[in-house]
């Protein structure tokens, strides 16, 4: 029982990171209909950015390095939109996916060339102490992670509800042509979505760098776990992305704890397949009626 609770806490903490990546993905998908295969690679890019900004030679305080690294996410997302998404507006679904797959090839290669294949160590400034609550060991970093993720989701929800651009984004996601007709600048909506989507990926990457104490190329594999998360939650559901991420994290922790740590990244995909079999529209997605 203690072990189960322990694993659940770890799973929720890592899962909330996946939830952030998935949230960024869903946001872009809803607003622009681009299935961004490179979302996980953007997450990795964020983690590597942090190692550069936090390097001793720059002499930045740790918190400033983190803030700056998060901030670089927005311009990178905008650049990504200009290079990979904008030339493809109006193209059918398949070429767009392929372009983002090409983007993933490029980002991975650039990261390897720029930062090298070796792990880069990074010393976190977050509290790493562990305390015990009736036998269950809880790392305070896990709590920090959950808090940051919850904060991001709350901010995001407020942004969606309270700002004009948030309203425009919801409108564009609901019905793109109607949004254009009512005078919404869909291009700006797309830019903002890419900016926020990438920012969220960067936040996730930076939390992962802090959690692991090192940044390595294996992060690209972790980034792909956003896909089981979005399928479980529903491709077009914002709350679904977060819930899906947490489910993936918990599944991963349970597989690792009770079966085989080596299998924890792979077997999660069995859940994806099962979901496609039973409820392809996900837990929160809308059931599509298409008879072809």
């Amino acid at each position, binding site marked *: 029982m203690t072990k189960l609770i322990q694993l659940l806490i770890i799973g929720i903490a890592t899962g909330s990171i996946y939830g952030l990546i998935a949230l960024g993905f869903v946001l872009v998908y809803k607003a622009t209909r681009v*299935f961004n295969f490179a979302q996980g690679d953007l997450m990795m890019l964020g983690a590597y950015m942090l190692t550069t900004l936090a390097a001793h030679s720059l002499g930045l305080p740790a918190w400033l390095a983190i803030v700056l690294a998060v901030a670089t996410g927005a311009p990178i997302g905008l650049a990504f939109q200009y*290079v*990979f998404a904008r*030339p*493809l507006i109006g*193209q059918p*679904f*398949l*070429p767009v*996916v*392929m*372009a983002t*797959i*090409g*983007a*993933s*090839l*490029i980002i*991975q*290669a*650039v990261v*390897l*060339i720029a930062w090298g294949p070796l792990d880069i160590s990074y010393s976190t400034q977050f509290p790493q102490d562990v305390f015990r609550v009736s036998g269950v060991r809880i790392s305070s970093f896990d709590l920090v992670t959950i808090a940051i993720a919850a904060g991001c989701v709350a901010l995001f929800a407020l942004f969606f509800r309270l700002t004009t651009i948030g309203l425009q984004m919801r409108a564009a996601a609901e019905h793109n042509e109607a949004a254009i007709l009512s005078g919404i600048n869909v291009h700006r909506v797309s830019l903002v979505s890419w900016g926020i989507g990438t920012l969220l990926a960067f936040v996730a990457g930076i939390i992962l760098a802090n959690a692991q104490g090192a940044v390595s190329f294996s992060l690209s*594999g972790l980034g*792909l776990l956003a*896909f*089981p998360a979005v*399928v479980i939650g529903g491709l077009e559901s914002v709350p679904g992305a977060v819930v899906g991420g947490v489910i993936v994290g918990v599944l991963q922790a349970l597989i690792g704890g009770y079966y085989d740590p*080596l*299998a924890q*990244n*792979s*077997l999660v*995909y*069995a859940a*994806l*397949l099962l979901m*496609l*079999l039973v409820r*392809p529209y996900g837990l929160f997605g809308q059931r*599509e009626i*298409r008879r*072809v």
Partner: protein
Amino acid sequence: MTTATYETRYRRQQRLIRTRASAVWAAVLTAVVLYLPWVVFHHSLLGAHLTKHMLLNMNMTQLNVMLIVLVGAVGLNLLTGYTGLISIGNAGFFALGAIVAATLGGTHPGWPDVPFPVVVLAAGAAGAAAGAVVGLPSLRIRGIYLLLATLSLHFLMVWLFLKFQTTYFGFGGIQFLKPASLFGYALNTDIRWYYFLLGCAAVALLLTKNLLRTRQGRAFVAVRDHPIAASMAGINVPRIRVTSFAVSSFMITAMGAVYAWYLGAASQDNYTLLLAIQFIAIIVIGGEGSLVGTVLGALLWQLIPNALLAFSEMASGISPGIRHTVATWQTQIANIIFGVLILLVIVFSPSGLAGLWAKVKRTFVNWPYTG
């Protein structure tokens, strides 16, 4: 001006080679591919010596791997280019092929030792079955879900492979020590392998070409272009999709068995998602829905990294640093080039290099009436 090749008889229209020009092309290409291994192996062209750089550092192994990849890409193009479904499962299917080859190929004491051709066919059958199981649910709903289903197939297969490898063979990988033999003819040299693989590629290309000329094959294209219209025309869309996925998985997995056997060893590191992505790059750059394009794409896949290295070696006289940089990051630089090419092709020439070639040809044929 020539607008098209017209036939007056239906039988002529059905022929594979319809014009004299394509007959000449076919003859020249056949001669070239048959003679190629001698050029690459002996570094000489009709008696004239060629330097390593003139051949872009090509060697027999690379030539053979390229042929294997070509067949895998033909399988993927049948699915993506002709049926309009995207799969990222090629590396996973290759891993499955290696598992079947290791199980049936007498690599482990006490396990069955089946003749090589049977192993290859069995691998193909396993691939078709796995493809149907994984693809079935997703093919019924929407195209993108196949991407996600094959992504999970990739990770599950690679994990299964790792489990299989570490349980029975250890961390070093699976060794295929017995030389493959084809009806008593041992494939023990690279040149023999080349002709065998060339045969495989020819069979795959011809079979696909012929499949696309049948009712079934035209249904693939109809489903790609407009699923709703296709179903109105009496095509069972889910069934066509599953058929296409099964045929494509058959070819890819059969080649996975050949690949493992040709390399002589298979380990988990061979089957990365990057490999699967490179297959997608091959068919997008070469041309979706074009067999010529698939061949061009596979050629580029092998030649770009080689050319990079060869050029950097030639340029090392000017700047010695280049050679080292390119040698260190050869794969990465090639991947960046592939990524950029994918984007350029999608934006400027959606039918890939094959489409570009057709455009150039049309320009010359219709000259000066080209607009």
